């Protein structure tokens, strides 16, 4: 492999938004106040399923300080959804007109002079419902005679997915050992620290500006325009700082829609901030899944055939749940070579809050089930957990039949590193175990169900007279650090310093289109677009520099750290900043401008590139209380070329906290569609005191499809932790919990059961 020498890439660069964030100056949507701004609130359904018979808003309208009260009847009545290519899947009105399908579904919205008045007005709106029986569990909702949520969806089947390769039946015939397991994967709330919020400002010119906390300003612009009947580019979406996303903020939400219709009605700015309770009970969440997995292997642990079936709890609407259904099926086979594989997935509508995208996007569920089963198989066959994974691991150049081509893959090295670490731990004390889980993830999806006619990512770059570079990107930084990543990629390619880059993002009016920060797409896709733009700009500068230096034609030039030079004779060169001045003069006074774009072509069905890794968790299980204490969490990780080590480390540690929460503390229990813990007291996410020691070991590979060889490093890290945790419990106690989260109660019950056997 060619050794690359970089001046910016792989150096720990301070986050370029850092000073704004640590001094409190970063202005989030939550902080925005506009002149004449009103405050909005949303009335939500108390019923999981019901017909709206009548809504009387007159009392609310008469309350002093109330400016407008709107219901579904005041909208165009259009249904929207992010799967725009499939009309049936665009099933959500946002403001219900005739029927409510989950507790928390918006039915009316109010704008008033302040939040208290708006809140008071909600109590004065009289809604008459005809309550209907609900369907709450997917396995119940699919049965004949269950209450049906949508007219078009017989038996409440929303989406089905099938994936298959190889001869599965033949594979099982050849197997020495076949194992079947059933799993239940729970839901999880994103819990962004900034709740969903938006400020809409509609002006009589017919233009709507929406400030909002989002992962994709482009999606929000298009979806808003469509549902409001506006021209796409009469809607401007601005999102400079986003207080967390994790998958919850790239679909159109109730705050964005309601404040937009209120502002359009009043021609005044309206702000809506969801309360923490609304955030828990009425925004989308991780998809609960019921998995059946059957695997056939040889005596020596070689994988032969796998069959997976899943029913997912869809909640009331499609949302991004259709994608989660597809990805969970693909990643159920990951990161292994399964000669034959068959997956059937069913997403079922239920009268619960819709389930959708959340960091990992169906893969954490799949990985938990798969990795738990692999340890059970290994145990049964007397094979070491690392060995069975090594034997079946994906490798560079492997082709998943009909699905994907794996280019770079450092899974083998990751397994070696984790193996060494486990051995270094020696003999463990009683009731302690180490569990491992291998994982992988995509670097951006190649699918286009949104039906965008634009390139997936675009960048525009302008070099000014003082050498300062204006870089316009469509990517969205929700905290993952893509702004810094893009500035670094641009600086490296152009040969300047990160301080020379002035990044522009988060505004559909000035920034080119990018599909947004989801599916781990930014580093690879937006990164490639930025690299292309920078490379084209560099070419323009090098033309001037070459003319000026007049080298022998066999020499070529490069720029590093602001120094334009002959590659073979680095001392012979010119200052980038001087050349820029002259180049602009030479261009009749025009700044140097270049564009870049990226759309994956012919890269399989899923993604152009995949990250890999192996995680080990060391945990104590208290046999008297069932309490699990995390001791160590060690991860060997292949994200291709690391761009910003500070960023990768942060992503990894953050993912552990979130995914460990999914594994053993976080859950959204419900009673007939009502979430029972919609607050931060009862919803148990990890606090600083519960975090284990974390250690990251980077395995560097070079991904030919990624910018400078990079691939995703943020989302896939959410995949292994629940499985590794479950396996740690298994090795500590001999019990395997197949029902997330692994609570003390479940552990105690299983221990009791084991004793009684």
């Amino acid at each position: 492999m060619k050794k690359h020498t970089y001046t910016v890439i792989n150096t720990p660069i301070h986050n370029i938004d850092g000073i704004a964030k640590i001094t409190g100056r970063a202005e989030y949507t939550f902080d925005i106040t506009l002149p004449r701004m009103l405050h909005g609130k949303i009335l939500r359904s108390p019923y999981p399923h019901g017909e709206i018979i009548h809504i009387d808003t007159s009392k609310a309208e008469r309350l002093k300080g109330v400016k407008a009260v709107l219901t579904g009847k005041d909208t165009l009545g259009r249904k929207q959804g992010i799967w725009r290519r499939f009309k049936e899947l665009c099933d959500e009105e946002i403001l219900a007109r005739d029927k409510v399908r989950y507790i928390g579904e918006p039915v009316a919205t109010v704008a008033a002079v302040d939040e208290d008045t708006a809140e008071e007005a909600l109590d004065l709106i009289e809604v008459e419902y005809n309550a209907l029986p609900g369907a709450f569990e997917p396995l119940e909702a699919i049965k004949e005679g269950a209450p049906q949520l949508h007219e078009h969806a017989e038996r409440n089947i929303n989406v089905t997915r099938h994936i298959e390769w190889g001869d599965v039946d033949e594979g099982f015939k050849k197997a020495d050992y076949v194992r079947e397991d059933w799993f239940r994967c729970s839901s999880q709330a994103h819990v962004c620290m900034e709740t969903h919020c938006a400020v809409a400002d509609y002006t009589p010119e017919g233009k709507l500006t929406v400030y909002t906390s989002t992962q994709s300003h482009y999606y929000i612009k298009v979806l808003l325009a469509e549902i409001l009947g506006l021209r796409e580019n009469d809607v401007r979406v601005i999102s400079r700082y986003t207080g967390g996303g994790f998958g919850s903020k790239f679909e159109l939400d109730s705050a964005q829609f309601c404040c937009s219709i209120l502002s359009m009605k009043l021609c005044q700015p309206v702000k809506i901030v969801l309360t923490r309770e609304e955030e828990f009970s009425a925004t989308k969440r991780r998809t609960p899944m019921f998995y059946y997995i059957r695997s056939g292997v040889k005596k020596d642990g070689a994988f032969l055939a796998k069959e997976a079936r899943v029913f997912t709890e869809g909640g009331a609407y499609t949302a991004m749940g259709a994608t989660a259904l597809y990805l969970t099926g693909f990643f159920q086979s990951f990161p292994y070579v399964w000669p034959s594989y068959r997956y059937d997935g069913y997403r079922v509508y239920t009268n619960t809050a819709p389930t959708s995208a959340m960091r990992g996007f169906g893969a954490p569920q799949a990985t938990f089930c798969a990795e738990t089963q692999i340890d059970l198989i290994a145990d049964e066959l007397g094979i070491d957990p690392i060995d069975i994974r090594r034997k079946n691991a994906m490798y560079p150049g492997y082709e998943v039949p009909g699905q994907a081509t794996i280019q770079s893959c450092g899974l083998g090295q990751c397994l070696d590193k984790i193996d060494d670490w486990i051995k270094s731990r020696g003999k463990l004390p009683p009731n302690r175990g180490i569990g491992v889980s291998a994982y992988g993830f995509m670097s951006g999806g190649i699918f286009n169900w949104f039906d965008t006619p634009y390139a997936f990512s675009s960048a525009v770059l302008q070099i000014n007279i003082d050498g300062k570079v204006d870089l316009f990107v469509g990517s969205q930084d929700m905290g993952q650090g893509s702004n810094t990543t893009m500035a670094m990629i641009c600086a490296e390619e152009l040969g300047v310093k990160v301080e020379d880059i002035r990044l522009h993002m988060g505004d559909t009016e000035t920034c080119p289109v990018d599909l947004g920060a989801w599916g781990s797409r930014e580093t690879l896709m937006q990164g490639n677009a930025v690299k292309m733009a920078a490379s084209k700009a560099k070419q323009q500068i090098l033309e001037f520099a070459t003319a000026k230096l007049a080298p022998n034609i066999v020499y070529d030039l490069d720029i590093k750290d602001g120094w334009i030079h002959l590659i073979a004779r680095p001392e012979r060169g010119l200052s980038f900043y001087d050349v820029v001045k002259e180049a602009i003069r030479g261009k009749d006074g025009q700044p140097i401008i270049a564009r870049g774009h990226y759309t994956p072509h012919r890269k399989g069905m899923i993604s152009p590139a995949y990250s890999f890794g192996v995680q080990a968790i060391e945990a104590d299980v208290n046999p008297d209380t069932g309490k699990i204490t995390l001791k160590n969490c060690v991860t060997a990780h292949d994200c291709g070329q690391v761009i910003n080590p500070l960023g990768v480390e942060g992503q990894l540690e953050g993912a552990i906290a979130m995914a460990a929460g999914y594994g053993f503390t976080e859950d959204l229990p419900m009673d007939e569609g009502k979430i029972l813990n919609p607050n931060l007291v009862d919803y148990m996410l990890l606090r600083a005191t519960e975090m284990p020691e974390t250690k990251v070991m980077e395995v560097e590979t070079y991904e030919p499809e990624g910018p400078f060889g990079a691939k995703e490093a943020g989302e896939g890290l959410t995949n292994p932790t629940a499985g590794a945790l479950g396996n740690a419990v298994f090795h500590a106690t001999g019990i395997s919990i197949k029902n997330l989260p692994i609570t003390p109660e479940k552990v105690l019950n299983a221990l009791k059961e084991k004793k009684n056997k």
Partner: protein
Amino acid sequence: MKKKLVHLTVNEEYHELYISPRKLLVEILRDELDLTGTKRGCSTGSCGACTILLDGAAVKSCSVLAVQVDGAKVTTVEGLADGAGLTPLQLSFLDHGAFQCGFCTSGMLMSATAFLNEDPVSEDIKKGIQGNICRCTGYNSILRAIRAVAEGKYEDEGR
């Protein structure tokens, strides 16, 4: 409800404010004084995004009414450093990447500042921020940043 006069010294600036006695301190800071660096992430006193210093102690400003703290001295994130300067803790946050989305950061900084002022030798830094939720970082980078300051690595570095 009748408005009341409240005296507050916020970031060393003295204010006399006529406010509704129902208003929380966080609302006064954000809405009356435009100090929007202090955030709100919940209404149950659970997340710590609204943490400020009240007479030097870390307090969740959504859990006190402004009238309750009449005459108090308040420091918010905007008051941590002078002008263009940064405190050692802020510098350490930058160096350690101790924030991502940044929404909890103000509260984290205030809790950690109070902790460092009270007991800079304590080993158990985790307890100093256990009242603050961060959904992005997994806390460890924050703990490293605070530890570096506690260990004196930034003694000469405030600017």
